[in-house]
C-alpha cells in the first residue's frame, strides 16, 4: 500500500512539474495561451516566442510582459512569471481580455506595418 501511493505521488509531482515547466519555459512557446480562456472559439494564436523577438528585434521583456501600478508602468519590473489574466481579469466575459491580447499583438503589427493582422493569419487551424 505504502509503496503504491508513493509511486502515484511521484507521478503526480512529475506531471505537474512537466506542465509548469512547459508552460513557463520560454524556449518552447508555440502558442499564445492563457488559462483564463475556458472554452476556445478559435485555435490559439501561433506565436514562436524567440523567433518572433529576434525578428522583431525586441530585447526588453517589459515590452509585452509589462507591469503596471496605479495606472503607471513600472519601468524596471517585468511580469514573465504571470499570466496576462492575473491582472487583466476576465470576470466571465472574455471579450476585454481577447481585445487586450489583440491590441498587444495586432496593435503593434499595425503600428510597425509588419506581421499578421487578419484573424486567420494567427488563429491557424
Amino acid at each position, binding site marked *: 500500500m505504502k509503496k503504491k501511493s508513493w509511486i502515484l505521488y511521484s507521478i503526480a509531482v512529475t506531471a505537474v512539474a512537466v506542465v509548469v515547466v512547459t508552460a513557463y519555459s520560454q524556449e518552447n512557446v508555440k502558442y499564445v495561451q492563457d488559462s483564463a480562456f475556458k472554452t476556445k472559439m478559435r485555435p490559439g494564436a501561433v506565436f514562436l516566442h524567440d523567433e518572433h523577438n529576434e525578428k522583431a528585434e525586441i530585447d526588453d521583456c517589459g515590452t509585452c510582459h509589462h507591469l503596471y501600478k496605479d495606472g503607471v508602468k513600472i519601468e524596471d519590473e517585468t511580469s514573465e512569471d504571470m499570466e496576462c489574466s492575473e491582472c487583466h481579469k476576465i470576470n466571465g466575459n472574455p471579450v476585454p481580455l481577447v*481585445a487586450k491580447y489583440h491590441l498587444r499583438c495586432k496593435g503593434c503589427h499595425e503600428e510597425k506595418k509588419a506581421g499578421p493582422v487578419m484573424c486567420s493569419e494567427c488563429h491557424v487551424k
Partner: protein
Amino acid sequence: MHDIYNFVSGTLVWVSFILFTGGCVYRFVSMAALAKKKDPVIYEYMSLRYALRSIFHWIIPFGSENMKMHPVFTIVTFAFHICLIFVPLFLFAHIILIKESWNISWWFLSDSIADVMTLIVVGSCIYFLVRRITQPEVKFLTSISDYLILAVVAAPFITGFWTYHQFPGHKFVGIIHILSGEIMLVAIPFTRLSHMIFFAFTRGYMGSEFGAIRHAKDW
C-alpha cells in the same frame, strides 16, 4: 497586405457606415417629405394601432394566410432574415474588432452557432436563387438586378464562412469578406434592400387603410 487590410477595415468601414446611415436617413427623410408634398393621404390615414396590428401579423411566422399557403418559403424567409441580422451583429470576431476599435462590446453568439446560422443564410440564398430560376411566376418578374442583389447578400456570408474555416486563399477571401460586407451595407438604402427601411411604413399604411377605414384584416 497591411495597407489593403487597413484600408478595407479602416477607411472603408467608416465610408460604408456613413453611406449606410446617411443613406437610410436621406431615403427616409426625402421619402417623408415627398409623401408630405404628393401623398398627404399617408399622413391622414396612417393609424399607429392598425399599422402595428398589421406589422405584427406579418412579422410572426405563419401570421398571414399567404404564409400558411407557402410553409417552406415562410420557414426559409424567417430563418434567413433572423440569421442575416443576428450573425453580423453578434459574431464574436465582429464584437472583438469593435471592442478593439471603440472599446464597446455586447452579447455574442458562440462560433459554432454562428457557423450554422451562416450556413442557413447561404442555404436560403440558394433556395431563393433556385426559386427565381425555376418558378415561372418569379422568373417572369426577375431581372439581372435581382441576381446581383442576391449575390450582394450572399457574398459576406460565403466569404465569412470561407475565411473562418481557412479554406484555400483565406487571407485574400478575408479581404473580400470585409469588402462585401461593406458593399451590402451601402446597398441597403439604395437598392431593393431598402425594404429594410420602408417595410414598416408600407405594411403599416396598408394596415391602417384596411384597419381604420375598411374595418378588415390584411393578413
